[in-house]
């Protein structure tokens, strides 16, 4: 989905805690973390486990399958990039491994989206350096 115009939407500000997550996405792989000490799974990526404050974490690759937890068809957003693209679908997807993430649904008309709908990840290379995990109907 290469853009012909310059990409104007907000880009992630990759930091030392999140680098592994974004680097995996660039390889078209979706990961979340699990605490090696207490086993708590977590999304989004961060250095310490909020449950036990352990620094020992492992990366767990997600299957990319999930369901729509909730969504909204956005008809108005002043942010450059989104302003020209309304309506689009903002959603929270629950991965089959449990964690939920904020994302966009693509390849599906807004009025066809339902809570509980099965979806699967698509990797959108929005710039040379950044890949966003979006979802389409499974």
């Amino acid at each position, binding site marked *: 989905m290469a853009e012909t115009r310059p990409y104007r939407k907000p880009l992630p500000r990759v930091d030392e805690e999140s680098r592994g997550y974004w680097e995996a996405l660039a390889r078209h792989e979706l990961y979340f973390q699990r605490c090696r000490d207490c086993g708590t799974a977590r*999304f989004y990526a961060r250095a310490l486990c*909020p449950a036990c404050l352990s620094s020992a974490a492992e990366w767990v690759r997600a299957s990319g399958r999930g369901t729509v*937890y909730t969504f*909204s068809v956005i*008809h108005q957003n002043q942010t450059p*990039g989104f302003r020209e693209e309304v309506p689009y679908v903002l959603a929270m997807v629950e991965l089959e491994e449990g*964690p939920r993430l904020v994302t966009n649904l693509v390849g599906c008309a807004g009025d066809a989206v339902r809570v509980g709908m099965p979806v699967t990840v698509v990797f959108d290379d929005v710039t040379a350096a950044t890949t*966003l995990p979006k979802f389409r109907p499974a």
Partner: protein
Amino acid sequence: MTVWGKTAIVGAWEHPTRFAPHMTAFQIHAESARGALADAGLTVRDVDGFFTSGVGPIGLLSLCHHLDLRPDHVDSTSIGGSSFVSHCIHAAAAIAAGLCKVALVTYGSTAASERFAIGTAGTLVGEPPDQFEAPFGPTIVGSYAMVAQRHMHEYGTTSAQLAEIAVTMRRHAALNPHAKYREPITVDDVLTSRVIASPLHLLDCCVISDGGGALVLTSTERARDLAKCPVPILGGAEAVRHLGVGRHDLLDIAARQSGPLALARAGIRHDDIDCCMIYDSYTITVLATLEALGFCKPGEGGAFCAGGRIGLGGALPVNTDGGGLSSNHPGMRGIFLVIEAVRQLRGDREQAQVPDAKLALVHGTGGMLGQRHSGVTMILGRG
């Protein structure tokens, strides 16, 4: 040592402006301070505690400069629109602890004349969690809309039920000469207004206005000698919700924690409350908050808000000034919830008066339901 019942709101003033391109936000703060201090029968020289928010990271210092204040105690807790409700609770604790004697809380904003489209401005990448959200185009209204969508899915709540809340607020606004919108609306008007972020329509959203207000608080002991009937703070609590490690139930909002705690601290039950001032950024905010506070069971909010129950003359009047949905919303509305509760408890509301109101519950929501937000509940009485 308990703080409850020892501090009272003795001055309350809402700036009448809804559009003030000829004024600065600091001027609205200052005029509001003047109004609230005059209401209390105190002067700016009596103020030794200062509380504000919405003015930038160290904006409290600039505002002290602007007002030439040299307070002994300050607090610029910034947790969104609920901040000013927090300030009242913090002032109650500070006054009870002897940190200050007369607390001034001020708010001012020119959001409308700056043409700031608050709910649809989109979000930027600032702090670590933002990088996982902002690239997907969330808006404030979109975040609340996802809560509404989830509520509809779990409980069958309808857009018509949400619309009834907007209709009720507009009915109240008709009695408020300063309200931004006063013409009656119907459920159909709400449902046929354009969709901003499904399932929320334009008329499910609060207005954007300029405005401000101020509050003055002191000990209940000192309050006895002042101009107006004091309104004691009988209980209060704060809570925070967010998406945690990615498993959070979006309908478990902060009010579920702060509401029961505030009621317990005040030693009262839901049945004792005569009226509520509930932050109404969107219609769903009112429905979800009343449920979470425990006025009805989870899933019953739609039915609870219907049939006039939350209107004047109903069992639990809510936002008798017309709320953010019709009266005013300059970006952080919490202070107006407190001001309207004070007016009700003083018996000052004439046509919009809740008969013999003795106890009011105020609940401010700050930030975004569906994402990171605060909830602050405060119980006010009649002195």
